[in-house]
């Protein structure tokens, strides 16, 4: 019975992946990609990797899906002319060869893994006590491999800078995305008023439970970002001006605290990002609390998009 479910899921993943590549319209491809992400999340649940499933659903499928949908909407006007430009047969075959090569290399790598696969899981389990957290994933992400998490948090910030740098001169430092007028009796405003408080509580719960159970700051921050985006789209609140000091402080506070604690570790524990004996848990909690709002703001503003209006006056040379 479970085998039938697993086979169906695997087949669905492959079919949706093919659909995403083959679909002629960008919009259809994006819809395929989002569905693919949701089925993939179910696959992770079946593999008992609930943390990964949560991240895939919230970030891989939800947030990336929203980004791609926005991109597809922007590309709609150029889509039919772009389709007339067919790449030459040579490019087609080279692309196919490279794609097939990558797939083959991955397949070989996975299939030739020694059985049992090399793993650090026993070491993690043996040393998890020293971190004070009970979710092994959180222990790995914030103690044993904290460097990766730090870089991830900074990459999100770089992505946001990349989005902002696409702003036209007249909108530099202005508000992200178009202005959404508020319809006070509209259904979107109704949904936002009802859902936002629930969503915030669920986001906090997922964030807080991360110490002991599947969950954590990235998944919680994605939910929090979604709630903020909902209020933006419903017109209940407006995107902040991107040159505001408060906003920029909120964005860098998380990574800055993380880096500061990392350097403190050089003195107190003898290694960058090392935690002194007995202080691991409180320091991890401080880092998580600092990163959570920064990530939420950064993720929301990445999706909210390029600054389009209310720029700093005089920047466009007028």
């Amino acid at each position, binding site marked *: 019975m479970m085998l039938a479910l697993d086979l169906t899921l695997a087949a669905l993943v492959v079919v949706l992946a093919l659909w995403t590549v083959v679909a002629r319209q960008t919009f259809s491809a994006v819809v395929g990609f989002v569905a693919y992400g949701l089925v993939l999340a179910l696959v992770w649940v079946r593999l008992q990797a609930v943390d990964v499933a949560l991240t895939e659903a919230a970030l891989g499928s939800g947030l990336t899906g929203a980004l791609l949908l926005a991109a597809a909407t922007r590309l709609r006007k150029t889509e039919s002319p772009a389709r007339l430009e067919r790449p030459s047969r040579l490019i087609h075959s080279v692309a196919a060869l490279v794609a097939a090569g990558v797939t083959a290399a991955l397949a070989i790598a996975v299939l030739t893994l020694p059985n049992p696969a090399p793993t650090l899981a026993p070491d993690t389990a043996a040393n998890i006590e020293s971190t004070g957290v009970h979710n092994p994933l959180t222990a790995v992400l914030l103690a044993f491999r904290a460097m990766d998490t730090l870089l991830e948090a900074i990459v999100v910030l770089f992505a946001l800078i990349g989005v902002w740098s696409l702003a036209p001169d007249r909108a530099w430092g202005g508000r992200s995305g178009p202005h959404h007028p508020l319809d006070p009796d509209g*259904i*979107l405003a*109704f*949904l936002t008023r*009802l*859902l936002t408080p*629930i969503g915030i509580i669920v986001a906090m719960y997922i964030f807080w439970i991360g110490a002991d159970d599947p969950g954590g700051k990235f998944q919680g921050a994605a939910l929090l970002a979604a709630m903020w985006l909902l209020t933006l789209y419903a017109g209940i609140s407006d995107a902040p001006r991107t040159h505001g000091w408060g906003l920029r402080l909120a964005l860098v506070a998380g990574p800055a605290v993380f880096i500061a604690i990392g350097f403190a570790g050089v003195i107190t524990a003898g290694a960058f990002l090392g935690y002194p004996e007995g202080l691991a848990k409180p320091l991890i909690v401080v880092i998580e609390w600092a990163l959570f709002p920064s990530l939420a703001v950064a993720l929301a503003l990445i999706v909210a998009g390029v600054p389009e209006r209310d720029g700093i006056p005089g920047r466009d040379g007028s």
Partner: protein
Amino acid sequence: MSLVLDLLSFVAITAGAVFFLAGTLGLLRFPDALTRLHALTKADNLGVGLIVLGLLPQVSGWANGLKMIVIWLLVLLASAVASQLIARVAHRESAAE
């Protein structure tokens, strides 16, 4: 008692699955956006509701049951609003033609 509950689960989940199937068929077969939405949302809402109802006797602890009921209510809310929004766009586009 547990046999009755199992039977209830079986009947409710099967009925829920039938609604999902009907909704999917409607989504694939109905002629325009509004009727497709009609098929999808009505059937999915009932489908999820029946499946939650069927799973309720099987969960351990009232907190988990409560979570599932909340999930059902959230799905109801989200799908009702989403279908309204999609229907509005579809209506506007068909009026513009």
